[in-house]
């Protein structure tokens, strides 16, 4: 079941179209990647979900119902451009933001204590925001975003400004939140984390959806039927009707061979030929990275647009 759906959403500004008939459907309890180059329209879509702006046309549904202004309490949003009141104390500010989301003060206090301990920022409670490092401020903001336990969480570039340890911590928290039943929309340019975290994605370019689906399926769809085999010792297999050898290299006692299947036989045929050639250490299909797919898809669309 889809927790959030947008159907044919269009939003125009004076001279530009930010979103052109964009539809997304976010399954419940999943992590949904919202991808696209800068200026593609992602932020506009996120703002529409948050009801910061309204679409010119199209419908936006939460739990199958058109989204209402009370629904803001069911949504948690971490914007890409992070901001807190600089002169205000961390704890005071976190309480204020939590109460804006409809939590009572004692309840907000209780949950804040839990999250501050979890994110190891309890010591910063009485400090002013401007005294905190950027990463610390981000953690505070992360805590205030998830505090009211919203059904739908929107993270826009949640990892920028964090060191690798904190990135891992935040990743774990995001996965933990999904396990607890939250649905997460995740916008990023970091394709590595998309492969790691996202169940489904939508790729928006120039206000239009150009790719969508589950991450696994997309990667298989975009794979070029290539395999990578590692042999013990120096082995140079030769191609046959079912496959051709693309590259073959020997280093440190191992041979790495890349094949491209002709698609005529099944993988077992290839494996049999390989075991005949030498001692196989590993055999893997080569899946394109989301990074490669992103670049390929966007560049293709851009060059087509240039032609027209």
């Amino acid at each position, binding site marked *: 079941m889809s927790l959030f759906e947008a159907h044919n959403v269009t939003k125009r500004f004076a001279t530009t179209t930010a979103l052109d008939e964009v539809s997304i459907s976010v399954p419940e309890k999943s992590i949904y990647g919202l991808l696209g180059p800068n200026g593609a329209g992602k932020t506009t879509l996120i703002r529409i979900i948050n009801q*910061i702006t309204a679409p010119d046309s199209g419908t936006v549904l939460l739990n199958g119902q058109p989204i209402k202004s009370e629904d803001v309490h069911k949504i948690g*949003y971490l914007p890409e451009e992070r901001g807190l009141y*600089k002169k205000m104390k961390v704890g005071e500010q976190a309480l204020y933001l939590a109460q804006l989301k409809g939590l009572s003060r004692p309840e907000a206090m209780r949950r804040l204590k839990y999250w501050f301990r979890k994110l190891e920022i309890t010591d910063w409670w009485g400090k002013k925001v401007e005294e905190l490092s950027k990463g610390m401020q981000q953690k505070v903001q992360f805590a205030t975003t998830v505090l009211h336990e919203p059904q739908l969480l929107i993270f826009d570039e949640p990892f920028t400004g964090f060191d690798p340890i904190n990135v891992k911590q935040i990743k774990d928290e995001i996965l933990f939140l999904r396990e607890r039943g939250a649905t997460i929309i995740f916008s990023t340019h970091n394709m590595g984390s998309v492969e790691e975290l996202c169940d489904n994605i939508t790729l928006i370019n120039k206000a239009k959806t150009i790719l969508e689906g589950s991450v696994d399926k997309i990667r298989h769809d975009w794979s070029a039927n290539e395999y990578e085999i590692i042999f013990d010792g120096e082995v140079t297999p030769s191609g046959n009707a079912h496959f051709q050898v693309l590259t073959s290299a020997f280093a440190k006692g191992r041979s790495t061979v890349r094949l491209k299947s002709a698609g005529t036989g099944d993988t077992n045929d290839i494996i049999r030929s390989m075991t005949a050639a030498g001692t196989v250490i590993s055999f893997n299909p080569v899946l394109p990275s989301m990074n490669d797919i992103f670049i390929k898809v966007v560049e293709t669309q851009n060059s087509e647009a240039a032609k027209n």
Partner: protein
Amino acid sequence: MTLLTPFLLALIFVVPALMMTNQDKDFKKIAVVGDSDLYKDVIPDTKDADFEFLSGTTLNDLKGNFSEKGYYGVLYVSDLLVDVPNAVQLISKNQPPIGLLDHISYSLKKEIEKKKLRAYNIENLDEILKSVSASVDIQTIKIDNEGGTKKTSTGFAMALAYMSGFMMYMLVFMFGSQVMRGVIEEKTSRIVEVVISSVKPIQLMLGKIIGIALVGLTQFSIWVLLTLAIVAVVQSKVLPEGTMEQMQQLPQSFAQAESGAGAADAGKAVETQMTEFQSIFASAINQPWGLIIFTFVFYFITGYLLYASLFAAIGSAVDNETETQQFMLPVTIPIILALFVAMATMQNPESSLSFWFSLIPLTSPIVMVARIPFDVPAWQIALSMAIMLVTIVGTIWMAARIYRTGILMYGKKTSYKEIWKWLTYKG
């Protein structure tokens, strides 16, 4: 700053008073010499200085040693003064105060006029002069007594109008620009995106406007109370008794000294002051205080809402305070214009200029408030208030639309054309 300001404000009251007390101690004795006794005792003593005419002493006798003899300076008045206006010299070690110089030249001028008149050989000149001078005095008192209440009441109304008009200007402008800075801060720190994902932009904008008004008024009342308290304490502990009263009476005492009023005249002057004070007091009681307070509060709230929402819209449209310049001008001009019209209003409360500006919503908070002590017809007040209320609803609606779009626009320099487009965006 909140607590420091009352001290600074108190300084404004206390320092001149302290200076007054110092001045009193700095009493001056001035030696007056001449070629003969022609100008003996023509310069009356004042509160701050005694003029001692030394017969038979020449300027050269005193030139070198006047300060040893306890004189502040030596004034030499030549006998040729009637024909040579600059035949006067004041020799002193320090730059003499303007008041002293004024006093000397005024006294001498009178004397010369008298001497010139005397040259016409008019009989009984002294009596004539006395009677002329006396009749002038009587005339002044008469005017005061007859039209006293009305005249002083106008003065009081003017003071009231000036004060309320100016205070309105200060409060609206101060708090209004604070709203603008607040909006810019929220925009540049990007906190706004977090907040408006929880509340509607118009709620945030109105919350900001109301919040700053409440903070501002709290701060303002703390200032007023603390300033009064500090001044009261300083007055009772530090300054010698009566300094403040002396300060208030300063202009009168100068006038007395200058006219060389005798003891009897001085008594009359005190009497005049008393009646003046009484009539001011009476006119203060007679002012329509209920109406004044009501209109002040009404125009303060509405004027503030009007300007603060405009300031909020400006704040939302720019990225930093330096960019506000181009949008500030159309907002600042009406306020300053209103202040000028309010001042003109005090001269002529019934003029059509005052009438129209007390109806235009951007200027009415200041101009109408300044007009109120001068009896404004009820229908004009009602009309002005009605126009104001309608305008506020319209302005807040418009400002909210600009605000809603503006706070999410970064990095682009905003033009008026752009803002016009924002007004038409959907939802």
